[in-house]
């Protein structure tokens, strides 16, 4: 079962935003997220808002999905009409966006272009499962305007892939990455998962080695999280598989940073490494820097000028709302100034660029000095007026965030 949505306030039926929110749209960048809630099968550990074809019917079906999204694009164009500006980044996530025909993805991208315009240097990413792409489909995506692809590699260890319910063979992800570069993608990312029960240090080292050898310019590595309500959580509860161990995860993280650094990558966010500053995912940076974006699709979250909202989760409910001419938003929150400051610390501290010490409250400054003392914040950056996590600090980032906030 996909994770549940937060509580929030009601959203006007026309999706309109408070005038204050529209005052400075795009000052920190403007992005588009498109959620594609379909997967060929569900992975046991995943709590994303995604469905298999057999779970859906009516207005939520896969073949009419692009048209449904176009209706929300039209709604967004109406709401942002007065302040529309070209889009800096577009990100198709899921689910498995590449389960939709490349032409459908292209049509949505084109609609976004018509509604807002795409900036000349626009970054257009899609997520993909290695087994869901072919050299031909990759070429079609590239010609539709996609220039970055993020492939779910997870691991090269067969027993790890099996435990994660992944369908691709160990070599497939690296092969798909090579095919993507051949198709002309500027940037290719491989996603890794570490800390899966049964994964050895060597298994993970092999996965890192394979990712590096595939010649990609970006790697994301995430510790496996047992999310409530997933099949994986149920199996852990029944004692069929052991729960992931935090100490093991810490070891893996250090191994990832070491291997990737040695291969010429640098961390720019807690779980993300890029071969060069231009290889960093600009769309994700927009999230961490407090930028504005509109998220299309069921369960998608948006943020415009201090208002966060999220759509209804189920594809059928989503399609129904739009068919009735209203907003598919489920609820929203209008952030108070204090909330925005909390988010700023919480998100920016995840980045290698960190945050300016002057943005902290007096108690936060004391805590920052303490954190420098205990080796969690970089001394050099602190002296330059910034709070930047050390390697050990990255592993304890949430604790540092709690300490820095009043």
């Amino acid at each position, binding site marked *: 079962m996909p994770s549940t949505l*937060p509580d*929030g306030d009601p959203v006007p039926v026309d999706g309109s935003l408070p005038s204050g929110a529209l005052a400075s749209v795009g000052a920190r960048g403007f992005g588009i*997220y498109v959620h594609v809630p379909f997967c060929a099968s569900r992975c046991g550990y995943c709590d994303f808002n995604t469905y298999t074809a057999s779970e859906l019917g009516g207005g939520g079906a896969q073949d009419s999905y692009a048209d449904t999204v176009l209706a929300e694009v039209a709604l967004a164009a109406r709401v942002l009409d007065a302040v529309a500006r070209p889009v800096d980044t577009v990100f198709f996530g899921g689910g498995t966006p590449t389960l939709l025909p490349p032409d459908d993805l292209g049509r949505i991208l084109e609609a976004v272009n018509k509604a807002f315009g795409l900036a000349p240097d626009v970054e257009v990413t899609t997520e993909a499962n290695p087994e869901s792409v072919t050299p031909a489909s990759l070429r079609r995506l590239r010609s539709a305007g996609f220039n970055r692809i993020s492939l779910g590699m997870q691991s090269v260890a067969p027993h790890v892939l099996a435990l994660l319910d992944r369908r691709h063979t160990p070599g497939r992800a690296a092969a798909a990455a090579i095919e993507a570069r051949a198709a002309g993608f500027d940037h290719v990312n491989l996603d890794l998962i570490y800390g899966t029960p049964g994964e050895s240090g060597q298994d993970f080292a092999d996965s890192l080695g394979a990712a590096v050898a595939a010649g990609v310019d970006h790697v994301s590595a*995430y*510790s496996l*999280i047992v999310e409530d309500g997933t099949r994986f959580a149920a199996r852990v509860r029944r004692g069929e598989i052991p729960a992931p161990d*935090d*100490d093991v*995860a*810490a070891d893996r*993280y250090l191994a990832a940073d070491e291997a990737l650094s040695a291969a010429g990558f640098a961390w720019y966010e*807690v*779980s993300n490494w890029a071969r060069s500053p231009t290889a960093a995912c600009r769309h*994700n940076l927009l*999230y*961490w820097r407090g930028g504005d*974006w509109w*998220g299309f699709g069921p*369960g*998608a*979250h*948006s*943020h415009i000028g201090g208002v*966060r909202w*999220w759509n209804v989760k189920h594809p059928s409910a989503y399609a129904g709302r739009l068919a009735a001419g209203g907003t598919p938003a489920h609820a929203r*929150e209008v952030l108070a100034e204090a*909330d925005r400051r*909390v*988010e700023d610390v*919480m*998100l920016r501290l*995840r980045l290698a660029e960190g945050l300016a010490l002057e943005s902290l409250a007096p108690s936060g400054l004391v805590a920052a000095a303490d954190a420098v003392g*205990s080796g*969690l914040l970089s001394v050099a950056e602190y002296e330059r007026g910034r709070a930047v996590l050390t390697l050990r600090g*990255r*592993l*304890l*980032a*949430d*604790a540092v*965030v*709690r300490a820095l*906030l009043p």
Partner: protein
Amino acid sequence: MPTTLEPGATDPGRIRNFCIIAHIDHGKSTLADRMLQITGVVDPRQMRAQYLDRMDIERERGITIKSQAVRLPWRVREGDQAGYDAVLNMIDTPGHVDFTYEVSRSLAACEGAVLLVDAAQGIEAQTLANLYLAMENDLTVIPILNKIDLPAAQPEKYAEELAHLIGCQPEDCLRVSGKTGEGVSHLLDEIVRQLPAPIGEADQPVRAMIFDSIYDVYRGVITYVRVIDGRIEARDRIKMMSTGAVHELLELGVISPEPKKAGAIGVGEVGYLMTGVKDVRQSRVGDTVTINSKPAKTALGGYKDPKPMVYSGLYPIDGSDYPNLRDALDKLKLNDAALHYEPETSAALGFGFRCGFLGLLHLEIIRERLERESGLELISTAPNVVYRVVLDDGSEITVTNPSEYPTGKVAHVFEPVVRATVLTPNDYVGSVMELCQGRRGTLRGMDYLSADRVELRYTLPMAEIIYDFFDQLKSRTKGYASLDYEPSGEQQAELVKVDILLHGEAVDAFSAIVHKDKAYNYGVSIAAKLRTLIPRQQFEVPIQAAIGSRIIARETIRAIRKDVLAKCYGGDITRKRKLLEKQKEGKKRMKMVGRVEVPQEAFIAALSTSDSPGEKGSGGRPSRQDK
């Protein structure tokens, strides 16, 4: 001249004062209900179950904490006294081991006792103890077997047992059913026939014994007295003989079973007095009331100041509740002369109170009432008894809190002991003896009450029975054993204070005074428990148990290495911020021990199960005899 049964004008010869001695679930309240009905003092429409148990907490737990006296007019129905008019005063007794002194005062107000025993279960240890108390007071005892309507009733068997205990014939045991009312009228007739009437000097200065004192929010303290000599009139000024305090009498009356004002009460009568006093400490159970204008020369005997036997620290979980806790204790104190408390500060738990109780049930009742009636969330520290410590220089200190235990220089330590009586089916004798010996008990004697029931008498250190002794006793005997105990002086013992150190800092809440042979086990078990309860910190935290500077056990909480959510993208931000706010809120409930953050829950969990070493038990409920 017509017979008058009015208060203040009743011939003492027509009065019968009695109490009912019973184990808690043997049906005393139901029998009392039936008596109220049969004597006609309660209208059938107003009747409710367990009429006399007032507090909710009593009705829920089936425990009668406070006694009450009810005046019942009764015309004898059968036998050669048929038609004789009498006044019965039924004095309810508290049904619990912690309230022995109150029981003794209730008994002292009576000439007779109805010994009520469940015909399906036989006598229990505490009933036996109270029976002995009644016999020592020369009360006339009428044995009755209750619940004879039950299919499992074995009246013949238990009549033998009772006859053996009080030296009567089995056929002298009356058989009643409080539930159906069978035999109740006959019992009332027998009370009139068998019990002696009170004797006193009507023309002497007033002497009345206080056998109960309760605080009522609207009327102030209500004092229940039994008049021995003289006559108290509604306009008198009364004097408490222990303190010399004089109070204006605002109202005087009898309970039947609702309060009824009266002009006077005389020799042998039982009634209530209201003076507007706001604190039961000014009207103490056992004290003698006299009249200020014509005071008695000597008080009645038997008065004792209630002395706390068990101490525990009570702390609000939310530190800002401290003033509320103080107000709530002040309020409870008005109704409980035995409750002692004084402010205490714990480095670990903050501001709270060191509280003294008569026993563990008393502690539990107070704690539950504080939580229920004042909406407080509390932590109570492991209960301890009172130690007398003699130092090398011959000086002496009284220790009611492990933190007061002197370091070094200790010549001798004395701990309180109790005389405990355990009644058990003979199948479990071995297991009970093993338990008592494990608790440093000394066997004083053993008797067969009947072919299959045994009375075991032990001397035990009180400290050994205040943890989980009763739970252990129940579990070892499949619930069949019953326990009674009374304080019985002190003994010298080899005791040590075990401190628990967290990251080098002693946590006062976990210090305990234990026998030297048990110190190691205590240290190991608390250290192990804390290791699982305290979350990992950013640095390694040693947990040590120490006697003085000697470390006897050690555990380590390894440093946390990972505290970061791997993924935080656009859809995660709101949830993550809310989680962060929740964590910040949780942090406020953390107690700092040095640099170590300890969640309240860890203290609660460690303290609530800090029973004796190596044993798992609910802890702190040794003396509940009612389940």
